[in-house]
Structures are given as structure tokens and as C-alpha cells.
């Protein structure tokens, strides 16, 4: 969260209620998903969402390393969310910092909630997310990509998982924050939905919201997720109906 009231705070909403990139409060940034983009991975997907570029790959089920992580009754989901050093304005030191480790954990747990992990005891399912270019919302973009990569790998799951953040800018709730809105807005609530059950498997919050605002924010997030879900499905359908690499796209 940014420094509210600091110098050079951009005007996040204009007189007509338009956001700095011209969107309305309920609009998603353009989202494009392509499934099956990497040759060596078991499953993969690439997501271009606004100015975010995120690649995800899935390997397994395979032997667990290190061995002591192995579980007798289910597969271990090993998720790694990593940002390329050049994905942000100020070069990031290579490797996982504490933020990336936390995000890896919550994304892994969100996805494990829909995986039939008990079908693959004593194995591991590796989910690898690389953020190549970041502009707010990369954990959601990573989760959206990883979910499509898991389906591309043929790992049984109860549903695809769309994700999006809802935030508050200039006192109004807004869907799918971009960088300036994330930095200078009042709050941020990333969430991931299991559309079939209507339940959230990832939910984080930072900033200030009233109870009623949070309720509305979740409504907006669920509606946004439903749109993203359709694009995830289109990406998979395209991959298989065309035979080659396929993509889903929406404005």
C-alpha cells in the first residue's frame, strides 16, 4: 500500500468516474490466456493481463524432493511464485524474498483446494509461476495461469480457479487494480474463486474497508472471476479444438 497524501498522487478517478486507463470501476484489464506454451513442462500457460506477463508450468505427479516432504495419503503440492529481476521498475534481487514465499504458499494452498491430491499418494505436483512483467495483480495472474496449466497437464481437479483483486480508489470500490491504483489506493483485496461451489480459496486484504464495502467488494470480485473463468475455459477449448496452441481473449 502506498503513501496516501504523499507528493505526486495521481488522480485515480476523473470527474466522469473513469480510471487512469479509461476503465470504469467494474472493468477488467484486457486478459489473454494461452495454454500449452512450453515444450518440456507437463502442462503450461501464459497470461497477459494488462501490463502483467506471467508464465506458469506444472510438472508431475513425480517423486518428492526432498524425500521427508512425502505424504502417504496424498500428493504434496509444491508451488513457487517468483518474480524476474527485471519484472519491476527497480531491479529485484534474484531469488525468493519473503513476499514471494508467502504468495507461493497461499497460491499452492488455493490450488490444492481443488486438486484430487489423494489420487497420487507419495508424489509431488510442482507448480511454477514466473512473473516476467509486473503491474499489480501478479498473484492473481499467476494463479489464473497455474490453474490453466494444471488442466493442461491433465491433473484431476474439481474446477478451474479464476482470481482477481478488488480495491478502493478515491473512496470507490474498483475491480482489478493497476499499479498506480494499488500504490495510491486505500485498500486491496485479492481473491480466488471456485466457481462451481461459489467459495473463495484465496483471500487477502490490506488497507481500510467497512464491513459493507467488503461485502460489495467480494460481490464485484466474484463477478470478475466469472468473466475470467470463461476466458480460462476458452483458452483450454482453443488448445484442443485447434490441435495446436490455443488462446482465450477478452477485452
Amino acid at each position, binding site marked *: 500500500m502506498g503513501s496516501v497524501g504523499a507528493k505526486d498522487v495521481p488522480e485515480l478517478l476523473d470527474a466522469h468516474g473513469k480510471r487512469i486507463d479509461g476503465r470504469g470501476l467494474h472493468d477488467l484489464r484486457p486478459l489473454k490466456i494461452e495454454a500449452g506454451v*512450453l*515444450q*518440456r*513442462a*507437463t502442462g*503450461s500457460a501464459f497470461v497477459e493481463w494488462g*501490463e502483467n*506477463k506471467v*508464465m*506458469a*508450468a506444472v*510438472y508431475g505427479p*513425480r517423486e518428492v*524432493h*526432498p524425500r521427508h516432504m512425502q505424504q502417504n495419503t496424498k500428493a504434496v503440492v509444491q508451488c*513457487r511464485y*517468483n518474480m*524476474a*529481476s*527485471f*519484472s*519491476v*521498475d*527497480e*531491479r529485484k534481487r*534474484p531469488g525468493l524474498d519473503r513476499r514471494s514465499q508467502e504468495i507461493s504458499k497461499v497460491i499452492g494452498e488455493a490450488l490444492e483446494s481443488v486438486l484430487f491430491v489423494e489420487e497420487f499418494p507419495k508424489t509431488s505436483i*510442482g507448480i*511454477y*509461476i*514466473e512473473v*516476467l*512483467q*509486473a*503491474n499489480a495483480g501478479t498473484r492473481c495472474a499467476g494463479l489464473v495461469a497455474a490453474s490453466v496449466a494444471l488442466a493442461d497437464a491433465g491433473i484431476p481437479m474439481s474446477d478451474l480457479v479464476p482470481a482477481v483483486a478488488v480495491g478502493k480508489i478515491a473512496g470507490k470500490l474498483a475491480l482489478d487494480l493497476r499499479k498506480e491504483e494499488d500504490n495510491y489506493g486505500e485498500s486491496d483485496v485479492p481473491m480466488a474463486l471456485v466457481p462451481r461451489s461459489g467459495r473463495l480459496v484465496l483471500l487477502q486484504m490490506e488497507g481500510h474497508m467497512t464491513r459493507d464495502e467488503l461485502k460489495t467488494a467480494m460481490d464485484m470480485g466474484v463477478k470478475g472471476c466469472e468473466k475470467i473463468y470463461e476466458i480460462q475455459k476458452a483458452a483450454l477449448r482453443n488448445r484442443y479444438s485447434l490441435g495446436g496452441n490455443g488462446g482465450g481473449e477478452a477485452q
Partner: protein
Amino acid sequence: MTNEVTTEILATHVLDLAKAGKRLDGRGLDELRPVRITPGYVTSADGSALVELGDTKVLCGVKLEPGTPFPDTPNAGVLTTNAEIVPLSSPEYEPGPPSIQSIELSRVVDRAIRAAEAIDLAKLCVTPGEKCWTCFVDLHVLDDSGNLTDAALLAAMSALKNAKLPGERFEIGPTVPLEVNHLPIETTFVRIGDALIVDPTCEEEDTCQGRLTIATDEAGNVVAMQKSMVGAFSPHDVIELVDRALVHGDRLRELINTTK
């Protein structure tokens, strides 16, 4: 996911093919896989390029930031090359500190850039002994389908060529294109029996008897080499490969120079 399972019979088949002048994927012994360069792929970097060499994919991002010159080179800027072979790139990835492969990869790429004097480090000095530009060349391996080195240097040079020195952002003068004075290109060969083949796939790397990377510049000089993996080359082999590397180098330099 079609690929070969590494077995003794694979090694024998690759060897028999090489004797007949053929390869697993149908290429000639001196034929590169299709190369695709996408400069400016990442806008958060000061310069970037995605290189696809067959199925191999390497993304390079260049970042320029103010720093301090090294005490022994007070009049020069700093160049740092780093390669990450991230776990999505192949099933062989093992968790832990940077693998020895990624360290070798970054060093071999770095050596070619430095030895060719691709970047004039003196021009990256702002105040001698106090302030200079640090140029980070970060390589991100997305798909390791063989011959990472050649793809990585192609990505690095393309990224440097479209990089901007962000003077305005750091209030150190105007933002200007980074000057690239020379264009080193690496060409990697492996030995399969008596055959010396260019641009190996991972199956060919797995079954080879030695790998040699040769970096050339546009003046026809050899500027860096690296022999790696178990196996050997005769001086005669090396000279033959230098001749071949010069031809591939010129073609790839042409490609970088004409890709916008």
C-alpha cells in the same frame, strides 16, 4: 510432450544417424533450429528480448541503475550477468542455490560480452571512483530444450541493443540509447562420434561426447570459448568449428540487426 526417453539405444541411434549425416529432428549437421527474436518483450526492463531457438526459450531483461565503480576500475561502469534456470524450464531442475549449470551459463555469456567489448564500460562512468552505471543483464530460462548458451547470448545482445540508459529517471542526464559497439555471437557444437553438430537439442546434449562454444565478433575474431561436458576436441576440430561459427555468427548478427 513428445520426446525421447534417455536410454542406451537412444545414444546408439543418435550416433548411427550422425554417421549417416543425419539428426533426430531431421536437421543437417550444420543447421540451426529456427530462431525468433522478440525485442522489447518486457517493458518493465530498460532493454529486453525473448529468444526462441526451436523450443528453447530464453528471456533477457537489462536494467541500468546508479552504483559505485569497483576500486580497481574507478573510471568504468559495472556489468553484471546473471542467469536463472528456473524450475519451469525443465524436469531436471533441483531446488537449492543456483545450479552449476546456471553459473556456467551466466559466465560464458558474460565473457563473450566483455571480451568483445560490446559495451564501452568507460562510458558508463559518471564520476570517477564515485558514481557509475551498473548494467544488469538478467537471463531467465523459460524452456530448456537444449543449447541455452547460444539463445542466452542472442537474448542478451538483442536486449542490450534496445536498452535505454534511464538518465532522467535517476536524474543523471538525459535518457539515451545504450551504445553497443560490438555484437558477439556464440555458436555451440557437440561431438557425436566423429560428427560435429551445431545447436544441439537436449537429447543430443545428453548423449554427446563434448561440447564447444565459440564466440565470434563482426570483425571475424574469436572472442571467447568454452569447452564443456565430458569429451574432447582436436585442434583441427576446433579450427573447423571456428570457421563454421564465423558463418553462423554473421547470419545471426544480420538477424539481430534486422529484427525490430
